[in-house]
């Protein structure tokens, strides 16, 4: 047994949440192929069950500590010190909730959207949920890597089988990009573990122990680069974003929502949980560069979104811009900025998810996503237009809605780190309002320019049921952010402290180092 301190809140709840979708997925396979409705209902039931269990998690969560809670720890491959360690803190709690919240929404939406190979679709959707949840709660780097890769395959098939005309190209590009980058991270993980052993530690992949590995600046630089590359592709940061528009445009609506809503967050989460606290010195050195890339991403994403004639592509590029804000907040490396970043991660999941759902709904009716094919939708489908308006406002960060809180906190935090970056990022905010509102105006306002649009059907009850929870969360998180922020605060503080404390320690060592007697440290 390892001499790790036991945190008392361990039980099987978290495992149950992680594995419930996969259990459902395999049960789904047992259904006969003709049972299309049965497959749909079963998928919905399992995803709702997972959501309910995650609510229990939230209720039982103690917001006053940064310790990992609901910790479970079992040996897996003892020879290599690989363990099944899962647990959540104030950061991962909300990402888990976001995942369990969005999945049933997507599944309910897909009732109408997915008509071929229904059973297989929901099988992959549920497998994907297990992969994402596992990646958010894994505290063992090996386990994290397994879940991280496990997500790829279902998403690959969701884009590849149910996607649009260029689905094969898009899904392959998605897979190769992500795989290549994560393989280099795998090597970095292996190096990190072997460095821990050389430092006299046990062979372990437990990130809580690996946080304390002492590495030379050069080692940190390389390892940070490998981790950052893997996560930056996933975020995606400019200039590694080129897979994203392809994947989004070709993916079925459900795939797009999950991709934008949750999977991209795994990139930013990876920075926050692994890349930044594991290699604080390298992170500090890379901060100006990363801030620069974040700002470029914000402005570039907004400018490209502005000129898109295709609604879905516009939303996809807006993700590049929004995720740039999240990166900006993370690399502010202070409590405010990081809190804003996490808040914005959830916001983006809700608002962009909702935007993809709305685009999917209108596409189902008109079989086109070209902005030019719409106009004056307010009259024929007012309910749709109203929801659309609210979500658009949330996306541009209108005060009173969730987007405002996140962006405000990020800019506040970033101001302490770099004023120039903040100034440029703020211009991205303006650009964001421009492209979103301009798009909205062209789609919803004005006269009905196309005959077909005049007779469109407004939101159906099932679609309302899909949208209401998302819209409700957008409003709640905009009006009353305190419970969210308060719950994540201790964990964010601890992470930020870990990043900055290590830096200071390293600086202190350099400052007060006695004259080096011989070249012991090497170059």
């Amino acid at each position: 047994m390892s001499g790790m301190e036991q945190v008392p809140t361990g039980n099987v709840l978290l495992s149950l949440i992680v594995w419930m979708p996969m259990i459902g997925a395999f049960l789904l396979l047992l259904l006969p192929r003709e049972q299309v409705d049965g497959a749909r209902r079963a998928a919905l039931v399992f995803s709702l069950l997972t959501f309910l269990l995650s609510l229990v998690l939230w209720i039982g969560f103690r917001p006053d500590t940064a310790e990992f809670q609901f910790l479970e720890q079992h040996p897996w491959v003892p020879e290599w010190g690989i363990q099944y360690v899962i647990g959540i803190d104030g950061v991962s709690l909300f990402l888990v909730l976001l995942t369990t919240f969005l999945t049933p929404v997507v599944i309910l939406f897909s009732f109408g959207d997915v008509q071929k190979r229904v059973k297989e679709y929901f099988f992959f959707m549920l497998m994907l949920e297990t992969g994402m949840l596992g990646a958010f709660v894994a505290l063992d780097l090996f386990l994290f890597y397994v879940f991280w890769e496990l997500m790829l395959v279902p998403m690959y098939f969701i884009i590849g089988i149910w996607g649009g005309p260029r689905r094969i190209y898009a899904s392959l590009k998605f897979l190769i990009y992500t795989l290549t980058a994560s393989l280099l991270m795998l090597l970095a993980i292996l190096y990190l573990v072997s460095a821990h052993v050389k430092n006299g530690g046990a062979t372990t992949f437990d990130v809580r122990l690996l946080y304390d590995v002492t590495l030379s600046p050069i080692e940190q630089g390389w390892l940070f680069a490998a981790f950052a590359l893997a996560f930056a592709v996933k975020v995606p940061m400019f200039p590694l974003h080129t897979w994203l528009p392809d994947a989004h445009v070709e993916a079925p609506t459900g795939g797009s929502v999950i991709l934008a809503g949750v999977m991209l967050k795994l990139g930013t989460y990876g920075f926050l949980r692994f890349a930044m606290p594991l290699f604080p010195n390298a992170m500090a050195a890379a901060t100006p560069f990363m801030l620069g890339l974040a700002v470029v991403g914000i402005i570039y994403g907004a400018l490209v979104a502005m000129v898109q004639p295709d609604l879905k592509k516009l939303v996809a590029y807006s993700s590049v811009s929004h995720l740039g804000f999240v990166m900006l907040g993370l690399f502010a490396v202070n409590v405010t900025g990081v809190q804003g970043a996490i808040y914005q991660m959830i916001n983006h999941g809700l608002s962009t998810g909702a935007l993809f759902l709305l685009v999917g709904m209108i596409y189902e009716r008109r079989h086109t996503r070209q902005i030019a094919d719409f106009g004056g939708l307010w009259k024929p489908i007012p309910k749709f237009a109203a929801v659309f308006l609210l979500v658009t406002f949330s996306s541009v960060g209108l005060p009173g809605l969730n987007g405002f809180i996140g962006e405000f906190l990020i800019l506040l935090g970033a101001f302490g780190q770099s004023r120039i970056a903040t100034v440029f990022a703020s211009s991205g905010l303006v650009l964001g309002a421009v492209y979103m509102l301009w798009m909205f105006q062209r789609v919803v306002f004005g006269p009905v320019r196309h005959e077909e649009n005049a007779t469109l059907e407004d939101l159906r009850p099932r679609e309302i049921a899909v949208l209401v929870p998302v819209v409700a969360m957008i409003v709640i998180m905009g009006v009353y952010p305190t419970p969210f922020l308060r719950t994540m605060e201790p964990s964010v503080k601890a992470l930020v402290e870990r990043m900055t404390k290590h830096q200071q320690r390293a600086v202190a060592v350099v400052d007060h180092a006695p004259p080096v007697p011989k070249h012991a440290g090497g170059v």
Partner: protein
Amino acid sequence: MEALALPAINWLAVIPVGLTSLLGLLLLALGLFVDDDETLGWLALIGLSLTAVATVLLAGQKISTFNGTYALDGYAVFFDMLFLFAGIIVVLMSMTYLEGTGIPAGDYYGLVSFAIAGMIVMASATDLIVLFLGLEVMSISVYVLAGAWRTQRRSNEAAMKYFLLGAFATGFLLYGIALIYGATGSFRLDQIAAAIPGNPAPKMLIAGVAMLIVAFGFKVAAVPFHMWTPDVYEGAPTTVTALMAVAVKAAGFAAFVRVFLHGLAGLHADWSMLLWVVAALTMTVGNVLALAQQNVKRMLAYSSIAHAGYILVALVAGDTTAGAAALFYLLVYSFMTLGALGVVAALGEAGEPNETLDDYAGLGFRRPLLGVTMTIFMLSLTGIPPLAGFAGKLYIFTAAIRDGYYVLAVIGVLNSAISAGYYIRVLIAMYLTPGPEAEARVPRQPYLLASIVISAVLTVLVGVFPALWMQFARMGFLSL
């Protein structure tokens, strides 16, 4: 004159090779009288299984006999079990595959048994001459097997090509053995190890070692000695391809690892540089050329080259972890490659190989079992967790990193990414490309499907619970 002193022989050590040889003889003889191919197949299965049971009972022994030229240690047992398992799977596949090919079952199963006997000798040989004997017994059997489908031109071509290039490689092996004998005065690995002088090693010894690398490089299909592989693998009957890709390659590595990490360990600094280049080339060339293939069987041939490259990375690293990693990788490689070639065999029909990617279009929905298992094999070969191939790669790259071979490890993982490009294309064909929704006539292939399912289950099992299997590999290597 004194009579020739016969060394004391511990007959326990001969049990695995003896049983498989007897089985081969029995099958050859029975082939003359028994007309029913299935019965012969069952006999081969039972014989190989009994040998496997006997071999398991020998685990834990550490016998060196025949004057120190033949050993039965954990290492030999590990490889014997691997060969026997591969043999069992190949026989299972063949029991379906041979139907309608006109290949005489008695000869065929007999030769499979002889080939395995040769492999067992290779894994047990602690003397270069005994190693050579084993290699020849194996090779000659496989030359014949490659051409077993006499009515197929490509089968004939494969046998011819394999024979010519194999004979060439044998020449290198013998020359290398001679040079090493000249430099050290012995054929026995322990005596060679003791005779290796300090730096700098004599040029004759280095030349001999280089010759051995060429010869083993041929057998395991390492670049630049791989030229024969695609043609031979493609042309041979698919079941024989499975035997070659898995068991022959494993036997080559069994000898490679024992000779280099045990006998020639003292020269690691010298040969590791050479192998470094060979490993990097093998991974890269294998993977890049596989990208260009339209024929799945040929693609798997290139993939088998690439995987030899990953195992060579472990040889380059060369310490205990690396040796165990090589053994473990061979194990997982065997499971997934046998399975993948099983699927290729399942699609082929007499006269119609159905091996191109176009033939796989829509397969996943047409024959779900083949689709799902092939997906498992392809993802595992790519190295996606939690499948066996990932555990294998992880083990090898851990060893490489620990021993400081960072560049080689980076080349290795980048190659993994490249390999995704062609393994995924099989998935694209099976699931993303529209094809016929229902087969006109789904052939009955009970044995073949059983072999595929066994391989798939093991691929998942070893991936999720690698600990036990890693222990086997480590114990095997440590017993050297």
